[in-house]
């Protein structure tokens, strides 16, 4: 196994399927257009005996059409055993790493390179977790996440931009999140597989990661990799087979008993501002790059009008200057920027490097007046005024 940037790893992507046909098709399509770069990857679908009649047959058909391997367990194994099957197969078949992927995801083209890089660069990393709109406490929040997969190529674009921003950055976290987690097979050989006591639950990754930490490994978040996660897939479906809440509480009690430090590690990380800092950088990168590529609109408004207008990059400011910040939005992502001394227009132009395509002034106020004056001075004639009456009632 090579190390560093020269390495070329053989990676198994194991897609864990349990019904959820509405997710499986788009997920397989996203896997089909992965570009593993210098690595090689193979996709294995592990269907945990999906109970809906015909579901497994349709899944097998879709899978084999794309040239992926498909395996249906003779009976339902449960999530940890299905994951274990992927891990054991990866070890035995001589892969360097395995990516455990839930079926309610859509992956970017650069999944393999971004997720594997931290594993190659540091042999003491036992798992990397992808950044996502829905990744437990590590999420990059989005106002309308389902819209992300309705725009062709958007997940790829997001992940490319985040890769440009974060490159090989890896942030240590107390545990990986199972919806999309990569593990080197060398660590699996050391640590073992998931504990089946966590059947029908979601604490198995916490247990596995904490077990690996006790052996000197660490788990990391790879903010360079963005995976869409619907978050209503396999775990919820299989978890609902039993008494979900009671099981979750029991699993949490086992984690608390085994790893009394886990909760405090999590709280320390969250209160340190590390994750917030990554979020801020990520949102900033997404919005600024989109504005540079697509152009942008500057709005002076108290209300977030046309909130569904996701495609446009919008910078919005309060007309009165009561809130001295510019709120920028694009495709459901949001980031605030402080207004510099030289005014709103100059602040935004300095950020983006060009003038807005359009300025929309919805209401009166100090910022509105200043912006109108600046636009006039800079001969920006694309100013739309819409002030027939006050925006807000009170």
């Amino acid at each position, binding site marked *: 196994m090579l190390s560093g940037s020269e390495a070329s790893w053989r990676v198994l992507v194991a897609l864990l399927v349990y019904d959820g046909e509405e997710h499986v098709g788009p997920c397989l399509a996203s896997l089909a257009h992965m570009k593993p770069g210098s690595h090689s990857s193979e996709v294995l679908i592990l269907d945990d005996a999906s109970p809906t009649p015909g579901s497994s047959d349709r899944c097998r058909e879709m899978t084999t059409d794309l040239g992926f391997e498909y395996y249906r*367990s003779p009976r339902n194994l449960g999530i940890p055993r299905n994951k274990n099957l992927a891990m054991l197969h990866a070890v035995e078949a001589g892969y360097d790493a395995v990516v455990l992927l839930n079926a309610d995801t859509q992956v970017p083209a650069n999944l393999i390179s971004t997720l594997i890089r931290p594993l190659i660069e540091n042999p003491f990393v036992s798992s990397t977790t992808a950044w996502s709109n829905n990744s437990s406490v590590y999420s990059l929040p989005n106002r309308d996440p389902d819209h992300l997969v309705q725009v062709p190529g958007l997940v790829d674009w997001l992940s490319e931009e985040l890769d440009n921003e974060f490159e090989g950055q890896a942030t240590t976290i107390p545990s990986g999140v199972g919806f999309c987690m990569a593990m080197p097979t060398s660590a699996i050989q050391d640590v073992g597989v998931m504990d089946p006591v966590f059947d029908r639950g979601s604490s198995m990754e916490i247990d596995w990661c904490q077990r690996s930490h006790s052996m000197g490994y660490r788990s990391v978040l790879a903010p360079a990799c963005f995976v869409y996660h619907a978050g209503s897939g396999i775990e919820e479906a299989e978890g609902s087979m039993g008494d979900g809440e009671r099981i979750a509480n029991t699993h949490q009690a086992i984690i608390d008993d085994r790893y009394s430090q886990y909760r405090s590690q999590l709280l320390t990380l969250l209160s340190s501002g590390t994750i917030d800092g990554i979020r801020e950088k990520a949102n900033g990168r997404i919005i600024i790059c989109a504005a540079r590529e697509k152009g942008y609109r500057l709005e002076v408004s108290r209300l977030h009008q046309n909130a569904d207008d996701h495609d446009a990059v919008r910078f919005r400011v309060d007309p009165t200057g009561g809130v001295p910040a510019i709120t920028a939005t694009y495709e459901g992502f949001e980031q605030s920027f402080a207004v510099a001394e030289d005014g709103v227009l100059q602040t935004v132009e300095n950020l983006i490097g060009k003038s807005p395509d359009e300025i929309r002034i919805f209401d009166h106020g100090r910022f509105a007046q200043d912006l109108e004056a600046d636009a006039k001075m800079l001969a920006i004639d694309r100013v739309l005024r819409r002030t027939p009456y006050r925006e807000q009632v009170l």
Partner: protein
Amino acid sequence: MKETTEEQLDRLSLKQALVDADMATARVIDLTERLVDARRQLVDARSELEHLRMEYAQYKAEQEQMQNSAAYRLASKIWAVRNALGL
């Protein structure tokens, strides 16, 4: 003959299921032993608690009996007089 992926996964799944079954059995035995031990401790603790409750009730009754005696009442009065006189 080369094993297909399906055959390999069948074999791995079966092998792991046997390991899991062995582990599950060992865990059940271990948990049962600890449960039996914990129950024994619980029974002992309950029995001791009951014993202490009875002892406490007995002492309390004796104390009440003593407080109701003429000697105790007289001593209390003398104590009150001493306090009133500042002795």
